[in-house]
């Protein structure tokens, strides 16, 4: 059950983390 939980959270967490990273990359331009 723990492995299933980890896999599920990774499946949604990784794309979300990528999206947040790309947005932050864009957002820092505001402070340049």
């Amino acid at each position: 059950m723990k492995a299933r939980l980890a896999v599920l959270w990774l499946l949604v967490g990784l794309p979300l983390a990528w999206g947040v990273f790309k947005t932050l990359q864009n957002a820092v331009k505001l402070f340049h």
Partner: protein
Amino acid sequence: MSGSFFDRGSTIAVPNFNRFCVPPAAIAVHLAIGQVYAFSTFNIPLTRLIGLSESAPGDWSQKQVVWIFSIAIAVLGSSAALFGRWVERAGPRKSMFVAALCFAGGFLLGAVGIRLHSLWLVYAGYGVLGGCGLGVGYISPVSTLLKWFPDRPGMATGMAIMGFGGGALIAAPLSVLLMAHFKSATSNGVLESFVTMGAIYFMFMMIGVIAVRVPPPDWKPAGWVEAAKPKALVTTAQVAAKVAWHTPQFWLLWGVLCMNVTAGIGVLSVASPMIQEIFSGRVTATAAAGFVGLISLFNMGGRFFWASTSDIIGRRATYMVFFLLGILLYSTVPTIGFGGHIGLFVAAFCIILSMYGGGFATIPAYLRDVFGTMEVGAIHGRLLTAWSVAGVLGPVLMSNLRDYQLAHGVPKAQAYSVTMYVMCGMLLVGFLCNLAMRPVAAKHHQGAA
């Protein structure tokens, strides 16, 4: 569809099932359908399907193309209202699967429309069919999450609805990557990107379809005891959807959501030009895009933060904070703008947008408090018509008030001041609606004579 895999009965969780496996299922669906917020990345390429590098005679205009998004959002609200009771009856797995079929089907039908250069087919595909996927997908995990987390309903629905905000953060760079990958001498890559995104999102939504589970009847979290004396406005009774929308409480909450969303969506619609005009010469178009990105992050984070906070301070108190703090911030933004304080201006809008997202994420738990969990998904679906109205009202108010100011000789940098004060007025209406909330009369409860 007739197979037992999709039936509610086959989604009942086994004993000792970890309830934290359910939020990722909901987030998977919301991350996918949240793509709609990034649809504008396709707007310019869709006006260059013939000319490729620039619009040619016969190409669609920008004005025609922006209707695709508007139709999708309007259909989201109406389909959520229309299919809410079916979603409750069918259960989360079947409704998530239908949402995946509609949303991915919308991309594919849209791609056929692009291939045949038929704008009506794109409207029907992404706008109508895809919009149905948005509406059904948005409400499908809500009541399931509320039943799994009776101790933390705000946090649970906040996580799912945060996914909707996060969907745009993924879809915007993904669309740009795909269009660049598929670009060729004969195509600007939009058609291929539509087909690819349809396939990717279908598979991603299937994670939710496969993983979702409903709790057994009368299930409760281990060690959790329902409060003997519930908080004010929290009911232990159940109200049916067809009864709920005849109660004043439904329409007061409709007003609360509509006013909160109108104020936030109005800002979102003009965020980039607004910061460039108020700080003319100091904020470039690139920096303005950074501002849009930053407020999108706060829109997403606010969904989890505020909805979780509402579990501690209560739903009504959370909306009181939204409206009072919102009025304070909107009324000081013009002064901050005149003073040239970019940092404070950005901070104010980050908080405002966090409360915009928080308003969406806290409303399912508020509905559950007032009407019970029995048909909360269907009631939520009907309440989302407030979003459709606000989606038109906010941007129209913002742009028309700005144009009116400019036509009367107000400098560009000050053209948003009156708009901010009008938003304060709308938030005050929302505040009064929230203040007037009372428990639903016992005659409306399920089983009442």
